[in-house]
């Protein structure tokens, strides 16, 4: 089977200014951190980002926001990134807030060939503004439309050379469904294995879905800066 393993330079050929990019992550953790560093160094800008949160100023997508590379963000929460908040209030970052379950389901629709989904979430709130409302069996639902991206940036634990991937623990979160919802799907992994090492029920996303596999060259499981600070504070407090 053809190998999909590439280096960072090859990954970066897939990116240009003005793309819609999906970032698989959680507050910037569980993200394709080395590829994001590559995007920063390449100077990619005017990104329309889709991510469950605005990351943190020193973690994940948050680093691109801090450098003003992101022009819009479809998300559920930016509470851990005060820079995103400031840019939003200053009119520099166009933020669309989406309820979290709806966010997940819109992306799932985008990757599963569905024209949208009907959800009760947001009925009776500002979220229903401008949306079609349907009544099914006497209950009201909002029609929510699919989300799709030019590129999805996925982080997984392991991949084989064919592109089968496996997540670990909460690492699957948004990474699993975003892998389906983009024209080009790039995964950053900690470990590369040979085809066959991951058994049929160990593979979370199948090889045909994945376009490129990039293997981390730095630390496999770095502790994020927020945790490092909290740990230092806790240990300092003990002394």
């Amino acid at each position, binding site marked *: 089977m053809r190998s999909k393993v590439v280096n960072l330079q090859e990954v970066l050929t897939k990116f240009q200014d003005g793309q819609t990019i999906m970032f698989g992550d959680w507050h910037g953790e569980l993200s394709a951190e080395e590829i994001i560093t590559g995007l920063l160094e390449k100077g990619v800008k005017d990104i329309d980002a889709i991510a469950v949160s605005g990351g943190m100023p020193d973690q994940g997508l948050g680093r691109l926001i801090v450098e003003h590379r992101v022009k819009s963000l479809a998300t559920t929460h930016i509470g851990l990134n005060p820079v995103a908040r400031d840019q939003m209030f200053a009119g520099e970052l166009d933020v669309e807030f989406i309820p979290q379950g709806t966010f997940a389901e819109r992306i799932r629709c985008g990757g599963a060939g569905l024209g949208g989904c009907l*959800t009760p979430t947001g009925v009776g709130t500002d979220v229903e503004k401008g949306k079609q409302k349907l009544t099914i069996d006497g209950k009201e639902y909002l029609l929510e439309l699919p989300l799709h991206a030019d590129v999805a940036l996925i982080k997984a634990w392991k991949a084989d050379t064919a592109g089968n991937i496996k997540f670990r623990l909460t690492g699957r979160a948004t990474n699993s469904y975003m892998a389906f919802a983009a024209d080009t799907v790039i995964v950053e992994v900690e470990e590369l294995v040979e085809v066959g090492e991951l058994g049929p029920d160990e593979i979370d996303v199948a090889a045909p879905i994945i376009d490129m596999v990039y293997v981390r060259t730095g630390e496999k499981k770095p502790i994020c800066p927020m945790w490092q600070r909290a740990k230092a504070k806790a240990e300092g407090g003990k002394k």
Partner: protein
Amino acid sequence: MAGLTGRALIAARCARFFKDGDFVNLGIGLPLMCVNYLPEGVDLWLEAEIGIVGCGATPSWDDVDPDLIDAGGQPASVIKGGSVCDHTTSFAYIRGGHVDAAVLGTLQVDQEGNIANWTIPGKLAPGMGGAMDLCAGVKKIIVATDHCEKSGRSKILKKCTLPLTGANCVTDIVTERCYFEVGEDGLILRELAAGYTVEDIRACTEADFTVADEIGTME
């Protein structure tokens, strides 16, 4: 638990809603304090939006795993028998009516069971996260809140003025002063914290409420 006051009393009272084996989502902060006051013999399946069924205690810094985090991005653990799932499955649990109860903090709540806890336009806008889905899908929505704002203004209103998180979804309101059930016809005062009278509650509550025939002491 006699002798508790303030936020500890709120958390302890909320914890008494739960039965052994309930599947529960607790918001960050005061709601999460409920786990410290669970009655004897009550173990819960705690849900985390990121996709954990059976969240355990916060691990020590020596035991953290960067692949195991909670909804707030903090180190998490999973109890024996607990599981992880992806984020769409997590919200199938929530929105699909499989979660028995959620405890939420709030900015405002009203006598129609509306809750507003996600934004103050122009001032506070972190995003709604999973709160709207919880309001839409969880059977019992317990609001755990200070009775009044720091300014002294009631947080329990006739009608919320801030943008809503959920409409007609709140089932119970627990404050450091009393417990209201949200009934079909409005709020019912069911319990008072030690030292408070019905008149005290009327004086600090904007919402209308009726008083239960038998009024209990909150503990």
